[in-house]
């Protein structure tokens, strides 16, 4: 159990701010991509990579590393931002997002980018990868942990619940799933399009330990990460209440910011808010 110090929290908050700035810049440069869901996930992803996980940028395939699978693969910019910030590749490479020949594909490609653990983008599939990785960890008696992040629209996929069933069945207490509960998908609010609510009860019924937090409060995120380590015999789901587009006032909780990139003037406006 790691102590949650003011110092540690200051570090992850600063990293999340840098990541958000880079997300805005790379998307502005690319001219397309998924802005809202990258920003809602930034705080959790920052805490994972700068507080919780054991990874080595110099040795991305180190067998004992912790693993993070971005099941909501369209939020690739948040993953690229954290990997660059962590030193897996130069920050400058972020400018090549979504361009022909770039390793930074519109959706994460594990064969092209060091540190990307799974090729995702087709919603629902990443959590199953995470189950497989956690299962392999158990088989090999390794102590690494596996983390995944799902969208609250993504959990409408039946496959997510097949994976949830398997994770509990195989008692994968080395697995942790975050649901980025920002309340929005493409066609509108999740309750209006196809309600996945209540989310905590569903995971509980499937045999998971369930926590609910504010997904932008770094202390709460860290406390959840600590608490999951004390759970044995079952996986932990963290339902993280978040705001889509968090950090840029004109994007926050706006459905139209799901799959569009900021234009040059919007990039300026956004960066001015992320000082």
């Amino acid at each position, binding site marked *: 159990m790691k102590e949650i110090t003011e110092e540690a929290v200051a570090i992850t908050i600063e990293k999340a701010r840098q990541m958000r700035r880079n997300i805005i810049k790379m998307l502005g440069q*690319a001219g*397309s991509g998924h802005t809202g869901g990258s920003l809602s996930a930034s705080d959790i992803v920052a805490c994972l990579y700068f507080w919780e996980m054991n990874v080595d940028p110099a040795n991305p395939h180190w067998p004992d590393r912790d693993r993070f699978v971005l099941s909501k693969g369209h939020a690739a910019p948040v993953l690229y931002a954290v990997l660059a910030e962590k030193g897996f590749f130069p920050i400058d490479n972020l400018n090549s997002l*979504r361009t022909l020949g770039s390793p930074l594909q519109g*959706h994460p490609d594990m064969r092209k980018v060091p540190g990307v653990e799974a090729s995702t983008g*087709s919603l629902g599939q990443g959590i199953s990868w995470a189950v497989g990785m956690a299962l392999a960890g158990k088989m090999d008696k390794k102590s690494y942990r596996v983390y995944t992040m799902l969208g609250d629209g993504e959990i*409408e996929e039946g496959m997510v619940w097949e994976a949830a069933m398997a994770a509990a069945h195989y008692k994968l207490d080395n697995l942790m799933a975050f649901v980025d509960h920002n309340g929005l998908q493409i066609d509108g609010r999740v309750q209006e399009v*196809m309600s996945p609510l209540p989310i905590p009860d569903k995971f509980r019924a499937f045999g998971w330990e369930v926590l609910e937090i504010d997904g932008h409060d770094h202390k709460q995120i860290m406390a959840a990460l600590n608490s999951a380590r004390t759970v044995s015999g079952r996986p932990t789901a963290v339902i993280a209440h978040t705001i889509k587009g968090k950090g840029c006032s004109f994007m926050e909780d706006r459905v139209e910011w799901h799959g569009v990139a900021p234009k040059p003037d919007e990039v300026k406006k956004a960066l001015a808010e992320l000082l």
Partner: protein
Amino acid sequence: MDKQATRDAYGKALVELGSLYDDIVVLDADLSKSTKTFDFAKKFPDRFFNAGIAEQNMMGMAAGLAAAGKVVFASSFAIFAAGRAFEQVRNSLAYANLNVKICATHSGITVGEDGGSHQSVEDIAIMRSIPNLTVIVPSDGVSTRQALFKLYQHQGPAYLRLGRPALPLIYKDDMDFQIGHGIQLRQGHDAAIIACGAMVALALQAAEILAAEGIQLSVVDMHSIKPLDKDITVSLAMQTGAMLTAEEHSIIGGLGSAVCEVVSENYPVPVMRMGINDVFGQSGTPDELMQHYGLTVDKIVQNIHLLLKKKTK
């Protein structure tokens, strides 16, 4: 030349059809703004159902609605409609021979920046292999509208393959679209190009360039991949003795394969297949990707030259 994306023509035609026929129901899987079923949803909210991000369930619901007498149009991106829900399409829709029209947008590499995970280059192959399923790949907005009206009248399941980017309009509004009948757009005896979707407009441009060189081509819009127009295919093989197929899809299993099956069994002549050469797509603009994978007017011209050498051998 005016341009329109086939998905835009689809969205508009769906509203027209909805006004004419009460038994039409439309389903989508959280992509209605991109697939363009959104306009139907606004106009006929009681006949539109969003399945959420659950393509397999959407196809299953479509089966139930069709079994209860509705004519269902179900949309998502091609990768998810044909890919994720393949087995539901096969067993719930086609095996049961139900009246569901799968209208899949964002097919092929012109999806663009989203990258290889979202670029379906296999859907024609897998849909074509399913019994009972009609497979249509329209080449412009006008023929997309006509195809939709014909599919409404057609009994049974169908797969309509649509695209993201705007394409040149090839046809006039009174064009005659018949399922199972290719449309001959140009007549020439040196070689034939059989194309579908985005490649038809490019084939016409290439034929123009080659005509200036004295090479006369036949060009056919083979929108109907299944049933394939066997008569026109065999007669073109006889008339020209050399064929080039062109599609924004893998060279394995798509239009090229369908043409080869017919030609090799009936009147073998050299056939050259243009398409994606058994690789995945990647991020880039639609135009850059068409260049990168060699789906261009220049490449068609080059390939016709190569084909003509094979023919004279």
